[in-house]
């Protein structure tokens, strides 16, 4: 079995001739004989199994008594907001007590603008932007060079007062935001190349476009890899169907919705965006992502919990004292966004030299 490049895409043409590309997950055929690194089939390609970085953001702040654990060390009790992560308690490090000093620098904007800038770049809000690159972009500059996307910026909730420092968490430099893609359909198109209008209305899948290439690649693989490929393409089909089944109002950006508007089921969007991020990582298309659940000074409502009377901003400022709402939001976010179970992961070698699949659950996002 010849070595397959980690960068292999399944290629095809959509109905209108648009290029379709579906990235591949890690397969045995891509590894060297030790299974510890990719076989370098492209001159200069990185052979180390890559690490990835995700910066996840939620706006407005927390209610500390529901979030921060009372105890420190390894035996800490999960608070209501952290309780949905119980299965992952041994994989997380909860940190409290950190300071964001430049948020208190005198200068333009309100507390939200200044906090956001300081949190993302460590630099005071300039009145227009974050004053410097955000940490995800600092890391992307180092590790994103060889990826199809240096980084991906993903978002969920749209509701915002509208200024740049409120709408964006990723900054390439002092004045240049990198806006999050908030529409699953558009994120799907970026990852899989199906830019044809109304592809979601058609009965055909983008997998149809790459059928010949998929069969050709599959034919060159060993049986274990064939199973992996089949399961992976099946998961692509699942996420494609989930995107295609979104109601039309979920495919448009409306930042300042009408007073009775913005009643979307945004855990549904959050989960789909998480699934797409996992696919982007699994197919090696990027190593860095930012994920903006709600906006800085965000205005989202919580219709699926029955909380539509006020917006996110008012709830966090105690305008409506609804006991435990923070915990319920966090729980629902975590349950809805617990992520997708991918059939393949990065493989590992045990002491006997045997390859093992890493079948991992991944947390898409949390409280």
């Amino acid at each position, binding site marked *: 079995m010849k070595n397959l490049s980690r960068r292999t895409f399944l290629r095809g043409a959509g109905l209108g001739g648009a290029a379709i590309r579906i990235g591949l997950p890690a397969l045995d055929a891509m590894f060297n004989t030790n299974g510890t690194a990719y076989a370098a089939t492209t001159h200069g390609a990185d052979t180390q199994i890559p*690490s*990835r*970085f*995700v910066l*996840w*953001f*939620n*706006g*407005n*702040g*927390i*209610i*500390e008594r529901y*979030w*921060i654990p009372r105890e*420190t*060390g*390894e035996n*800490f009790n999960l608070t209501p907001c952290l309780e949905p*992560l119980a299965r992952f*308690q*041994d*994989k*997380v*490090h*909860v*940190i*409290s*007590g*950190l*300071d*964001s000093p*430049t*948020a*208190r620098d005198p200068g333009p904007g309100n*507390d*939200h603008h200044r*906090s*956001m800038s*300081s*949190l993302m*770049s460590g630099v005071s809000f300039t009145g227009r932007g974050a004053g410097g690159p955000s*940490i995800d972009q*600092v*890391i992307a500059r*180092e*590790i994103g060079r060889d990826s199809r996307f240096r980084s991906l910026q993903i978002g969920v909730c749209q509701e915002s007062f509208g200024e740049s420092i409120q709408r964006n968490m990723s900054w390439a430099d002092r004045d240049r935001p990198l806006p999050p893609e908030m529409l699953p359909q558009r994120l799907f198109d970026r990852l899989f190349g199906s830019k044809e209008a109304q592809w979601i209305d058609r009965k055909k899948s983008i997998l149809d476009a790459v059928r010949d290439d998929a069969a050709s690649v599959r034919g060159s693989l060993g049986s274990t890899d064939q199973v992996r490929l089949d399961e992976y393409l099946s998961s692509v089909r699942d996420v494609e169907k989930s995107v295609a089944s979104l109601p039309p109002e979920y495919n448009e950006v409306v930042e300042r919705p009408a007073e009775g508007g913005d009643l979307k089921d945004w855990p549904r969007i959050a989960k789909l965006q998480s699934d797409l991020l*996992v696919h982007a*990582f699994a197919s090696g298309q990027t190593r860095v992502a930012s994920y903006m659940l709600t906006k800085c*000074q965000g205005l989202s409502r919580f219709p699926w919990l029955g909380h539509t009377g006020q917006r996110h901003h008012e709830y*966090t*400022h*105690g305008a409506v004292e609804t006991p435990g709402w923070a915990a319920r939001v966090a729980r629902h976010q975590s349950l809805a966004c617990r992520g997708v179970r991918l059939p393949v*992961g*990065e493989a590992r070698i045990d002491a006997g030299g045997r390859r093992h699949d*890493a079948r*991992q659950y*991944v947390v898409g*996002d*949390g409280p």
Partner: protein
Amino acid sequence: MLDNTLLVMVHEHAEANAHKNSGLAVLVAGGVGGLKKGRHSRIPGTIGDLYLTLASEVMKTRVEKFPTAYKKLDEIA
């Protein structure tokens, strides 16, 4: 996949009503590098200290500085 991913979850503020930006709570997760896990640490550092520690000691990039980063945090890695 979590084994090869570093996830950092931040909120805009600590106590929201006060727009508090000291005592921030951050969740870090994943299996990359020497990240210490399965615990809660109260750390008297800056968010910049955390970012630099993660970029340098956990992700092992060549990042050597970040605004408001003054020290590496031993509690993390």
